[in-house]
């Protein structure tokens, strides 16, 4: 079973809930793994504290000429095939912009002289380890300066992991990277907060989930701060099940800031994770 914690707005509590749930499931004897798919800023391991092995470099294919020269601007078949402006014909060769390349391979297929091949380009790393407490973790980390993190998100969520329950900590937002984390899941849990930004971005996240045929569940974090009722009204109107409403807790926030797994000390958070476990039928 794959469960993804996503959100619209960032900073709502995906990592809090995903690491807490993983911990709680492990503590009750289940076989669970944690995947940090927030590859631009993975932070789950601050809490799970797994000793990570060596970085496995993750690559994506980009085009390269097999010859010194080619027909260049006389031909332009590669450029015509490319939807991403990633390849530019020069007078007698091509210039590739690998950071724009989406690795679709269209240019390689389109080249009438068969002089383009795909070569690997490093995008980031995948780290593995086991947490204190025995939770296998898989962490994706994209290289600084990379514009496209989606392929690495796909890479980590598709990793083979030996566990009954896989918890995926998604990137925030509703861009391609978040979609990649959500689309392969069995369950999606959206973490939100009762603020206008929270609600605005939740609507987008719900739309994203439904576009992939997922019916998300909702968790409200900091539930006692700021709401005027519009969040609850929206959930009711859209028939979105609310699993947990966790009030703001300064002590919990403090523990989190120190990298502690707050669920070990917070009764309310533990009840929250148990409610999620029950909803999942685990």
């Amino acid at each position, binding site marked *: 079973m794959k469960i993804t914690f996503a959100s619209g707005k960032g900073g709502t509590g995906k990592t809090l809930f995903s690491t807490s749930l993983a911990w709680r499931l492990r503590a009750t004897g289940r076989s669970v793994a944690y995947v940090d798919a927030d590859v631009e800023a993975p932070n789950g391991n601050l809490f799970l504290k797994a000793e990570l092995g060596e970085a496995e470099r993750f690559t994506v294919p980009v085009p390269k000429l097999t010859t010194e020269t080619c027909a260049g*601007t006389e031909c332009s078949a590669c450029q015509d095939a490319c939807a*991403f402006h990633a390849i*530019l*014909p020069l*007078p007698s060769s091509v210039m590739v912009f690998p950071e724009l390349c989406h690795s679709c391979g269209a240019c390689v297929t389109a080249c009438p002289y068969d002089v383009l091949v795909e070569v690997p380009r490093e995008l980031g790393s995948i780290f593995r380890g086991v947490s204190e407490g025995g939770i296998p973790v898989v962490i994706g980390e994209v290289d600084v300066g990379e514009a496209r993190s989606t392929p690495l998100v796909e890479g980590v969520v598709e990793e083979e992991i030996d566990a009954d329950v896989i918890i995926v900590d998604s990137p925030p937002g509703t861009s391609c990277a978040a979609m990649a984390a959500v689309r392969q899941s069995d369950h999606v849990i959206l973490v939100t907060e009762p603020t206008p930004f929270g609600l605005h971005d939740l609507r987008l996240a719900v739309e994203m989930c439904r576009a992939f045929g997922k019916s998300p569940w909702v968790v409200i974090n900091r539930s006692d701060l700021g709401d005027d009722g519009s969040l609850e009204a929206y959930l009711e109107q859209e028939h979105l099940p609310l699993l947990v409403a966790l009030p703001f807790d300064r002590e919990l926030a403090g523990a989190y800031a120190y990298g502690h797994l707050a669920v070990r000390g917070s009764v309310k958070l533990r009840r929250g994770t148990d409610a999620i476990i029950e909803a999942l039928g685990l």
Partner: protein
Amino acid sequence: MSKRILISAMEKEGSLDQPMDPRFGRAHCFLIVEGDTLTWLDNNARSASHGAGVEAVSTVGKNKIDAVISGEFGPKAHGGLKGISVAHYVAPEGITVREALDSLERGDLKAME
């Protein structure tokens, strides 16, 4: 034979006394000047989410331009223009199209290396 010069501009079919568009890849439009002949082009690249500079370089190549004038060239545009061996010159923001063309003629504009 006159050089074909491309300059980024703000208003298609407008006066030459309009301000030069300081952007290249995301310029509103382009003006091609060859002697007394003026040709206006839309810049289709300007709303591309990525690779606007690359597509603008393509436009330069396809129109057989000898020199480009703009306010600034991003790294992909710069790399691309170097790749197709087209000299590109930086003119100060606020300058009009006419003034920029005159400056180029007098040799007052600096080419990007």
